[in-house]
C-alpha cells in the first residue's frame, strides 16, 4: 500500500491537520488527521485543489475521518465542496468512519446526500445581449407611453374636478425646486457667462470688435444657455430628487397605500411636482439670464475695457424680446420633461434600494438626453419659423 503525507498546515505555527493518501485497489483513501478549522481554510483549500488536480477520471475516494478530531463548519464546507467536485468529474467520494460529532457536521452540511447537478449559467452571446437591450428599450418606451396615457386621463379628471388637484403639495414643491435652487443656478450661470466672454474676448480683440461681446453673450445666454444650464441644474437637483422620492415611496408601498385610499399617484404625486416645476423654471431662467449677462459684463469691463453703459446699450440693440421669450418657452418644456421623466422613472421603481438607485440614474440620464433633444428641436423650429 503506497502512501504519502500532504504538507502540514499550521495555525499559530502549530500543525493541526494532515491528509494522507493511501492508494487502494478500488481507488484512493484520503486519511484526515487532526483539527480542521476555518482558521486554516486557505491551506486546506490549496491542499484539496492539489489533490483534485491529481485525481484520475471516475476515481473512487474514501474520505477517512477516523483521525479527524474536530471539523468546524467552514472546513466542512470546503470538504463537502471537494466531494461534490469529485462527483462532477464522474468519480465518487464518501466520508467514512467519522466520529459521532464529526458525522453530525457532515450531515448538517448535506455531505452525506446525493450531489445535485449544478447548472452552469452560460454567458450570454453578444447577439443575445443586444436583443435583450433592444427589448428593454421597447419595454421602457411602452411604460412611458402608458404613463403619458394615464397622465392625459388624470388631467381630464382634474379639469372636470379641479378640487381633486393636490394643492397642498404645490407650494412646498415650488420652494424645494425653485427657491432652494436659486444660489446654485445664479453661480453656475454667472460663471458660464464669464467663461464664454473670456473665450470670445481673445478673438474679438484681434478684430477690434470688443463691443460685440455683448451681442454674443446676450443672444447665446437668453436663447440657449440660460434656460439650458438652469434645466441641467434642476435636472440634477429636482429630477433626481423626484425619482428617488417616488421610487422610495413605491418600494415602501406608500404608493399602493395611496391607491387603496382612492388617491391616484398621478393626481396626488405627479401633478403637484409637474406644475411646481413648470411655474418655477421660467423664473429661474430669468435669474439665470441676468446672471449670465452680468458674468459677461465683468469680463467686458475688466478684460475688454468696455464701460457698463456701452455693454448694456449694445445688449439692448442685440437682444430682442423674442430672444428672452423663446428661452422661457423652452424652459417650460424643459420643466415638463424633467418632471415627467423623473416621476415616471420613480413610479416604475421595483426592488429595494438598488432599484431606487437604478431608476434615479436612469431618470437623470434620460432627462439630460431629452433636454438636449428638445433644445435642438426648438432651436431649429424657431429658426424655421423665422424667429
Amino acid at each position: 500500500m503506497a502512501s504519502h503525507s500532504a504538507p502540514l498546515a499550521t495555525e499559530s505555527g502549530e500543525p493541526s491537520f494532515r491528509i494522507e493518501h493511501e492508494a487502494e485497489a478500488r481507488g484512493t483513501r484520503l486519511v484526515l488527521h487532526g483539527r480542521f478549522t476555518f482558521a486554516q481554510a486557505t491551506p486546506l483549500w490549496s491542499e484539496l485543489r492539489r489533490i483534485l488536480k491529481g485525481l484520475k477520471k471516475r476515481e473512487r475516494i474514501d474520505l477517512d475521518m477516523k483521525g479527524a478530531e474536530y471539523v468546524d463548519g467552514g472546513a466542512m464546507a470546503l470538504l463537502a465542496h471537494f466531494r461534490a467536485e469529485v462527483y462532477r468529474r464522474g468519480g465518487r467520494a464518501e466520508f467514512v468512519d467519522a466520529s459521532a460529532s464529526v458525522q453530525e457536521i457532515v450531515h448538517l452540511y448535506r455531505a452525506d446526500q446525493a450531489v445535485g447537478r449544478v447548472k452552469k449559467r452560460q454567458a450570454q452571446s453578444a447577439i443575445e445581449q443586444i436583443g435583450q437591450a433592444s427589448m428593454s428599450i421597447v419595454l421602457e418606451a411602452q411604460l412611458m407611453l402608458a404613463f403619458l396615457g394615464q397622465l392625459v386621463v388624470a388631467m381630464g379628471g382634474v379639469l372636470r374636478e379641479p378640487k381633486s388637484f393636490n394643492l397642498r403639495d404645490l407650494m412646498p414643491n415650488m420652494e424645494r425646486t425653485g427657491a432652494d435652487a436659486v444660489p446654485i443656478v445664479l453661480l453656475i450661470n454667472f460663471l458660464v457667462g464669464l467663461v464664454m466672454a473670456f473665450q470670445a474676448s481673445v478673438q474679438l480683440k484681434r478684430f477690434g470688435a470688443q463691443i460685440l461681446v455683448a451681442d454674443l453673450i446676450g443672444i447665446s445666454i437668453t436663447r440657449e444657455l440660460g434656460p439650458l444650464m438652469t434645466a441641467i441644474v434642476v435636472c440634477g437637483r429636482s429630477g433626481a430628487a423626484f425619482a428617488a422620492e417616488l421610487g422610495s415611496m413605491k418600494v415602501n408601498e406608500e404608493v399602493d397605500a395611496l391607491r387603496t385610499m382612492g388617491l391616484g399617484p398621478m393626481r396626488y404625486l405627479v401633478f403637484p411636482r409637474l406644475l411646481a416645476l413648470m411655474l418655477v423654471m421660467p423664473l429661474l431662467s430669468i435669474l439665470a439670464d441676468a446672471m449670465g449677462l452680468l458674468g459677461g459684463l465683468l469680463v467686458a469691463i475688466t478684460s475688454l475695457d468696455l464701460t457698463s453703459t456701452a455693454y448694456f446699450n449694445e445688449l439692448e440693440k442685440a437682444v430682442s424680446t423674442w430672444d428672452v421669450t423663446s428661452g422661457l418657452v423652452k424652459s417650460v418644456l424643459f420643466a415638463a420633461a424633467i418632471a415627467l421623466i423623473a416621476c415616471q422613472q420613480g413610479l416604475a421603481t421595483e426592488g429595494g434600494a438598488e432599484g431606487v438607485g437604478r431608476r434615479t440614474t436612469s431618470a437623470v440620464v434620460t432627462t439630460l438626453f431629452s433636454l438636449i433633444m428638445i433644445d435642438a428641436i426648438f432651436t431649429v423650429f424657431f429658426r424655421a419659423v423665422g424667429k
Partner: protein
Amino acid sequence: MSEPVIRALDLSIGWGSTILQKDANFTIDSGDIFIILGGSGCGKSTMMRYLVGLELPLSGKVLYADGSEAKLGRGHPKFGVMFQSGALLGSMTVGENVALPLTSWTELPVEAIDAIVEAKLRLVGLHGTQGKMPSELSGGMKKRAAIARAMALEPELIFLDEPSAGLDPVSAAELDDLIISLNEQLGLTVVMVTHDLESIFKVGKRCIMLDRASQSIIARGDPRELRDHSDDPRVRSFFNREASTAP
C-alpha cells in the same frame, strides 16, 4: 347567516409568467377574522393585493358585496388596508396620515377631522402622536398608526398584511388584542395575512392555507380544527411548527 363581503371565483394570481395560485375559490363573510396563511413564497401577500384590487387577476375574479369587481380607482375606498411596513407617508406627520382619507373624501371641517384623528389614534393606543413624523415611531407604532389610517373612514372591512411581523412578543400580543376588539366591538371584518402561529390561533376565526408547490388552497376552516384534525401532513407540519419532511 353572515353575508359574504368578498368572493374569489376561480382566481389565478402571480407575476410575470409565474403562477402562484390557480383557480382559487373562497368567500370571506361579514364579521369574519379571515386569515390567509402559508409558507414563505406561497403568495399570501400577493393574494391580498388581488383582493384589494392592486393587481388584476390572471384569470377569474374577486367580487365585493355590492357585486363590483376588485379594481382600484379614484374614489371613496370600500375598505381600509394596512401594509406590512405600515406604509405611512414619510413626508406627513402621523396625524396628517390619518387625516388624509378624511380630507380627501369628506367635507368635514378641520376641527371635526382633528377630533376623529385623535379618537382613532386613541383607539389604537397612540394618543398624542399626531405631531410626530413616521420616522420617529417604532415598528409596532407605525403599524398601529397605519391601522388608525385604514379605519379613518369607518370601513366595514379591513385588510392587514403581516401585522405582527418584526414586532416583539408584547407588541404583537397587543396588536392581536386590538384586532379582536375591533372585530368584536365594532363588527369589523378583518382579512389578515400572516404566518405567525400564535396570532393565527388567538385571533383567527377562519383561514385558508395556500401552497406554492400545488398552486392551490390545501386547507380551509377554523385554524385550531385544522391543527388538531387535518389529515394533510403539510398542514400539520405548518400548524405544529415541524420541519418539512420533503428532501
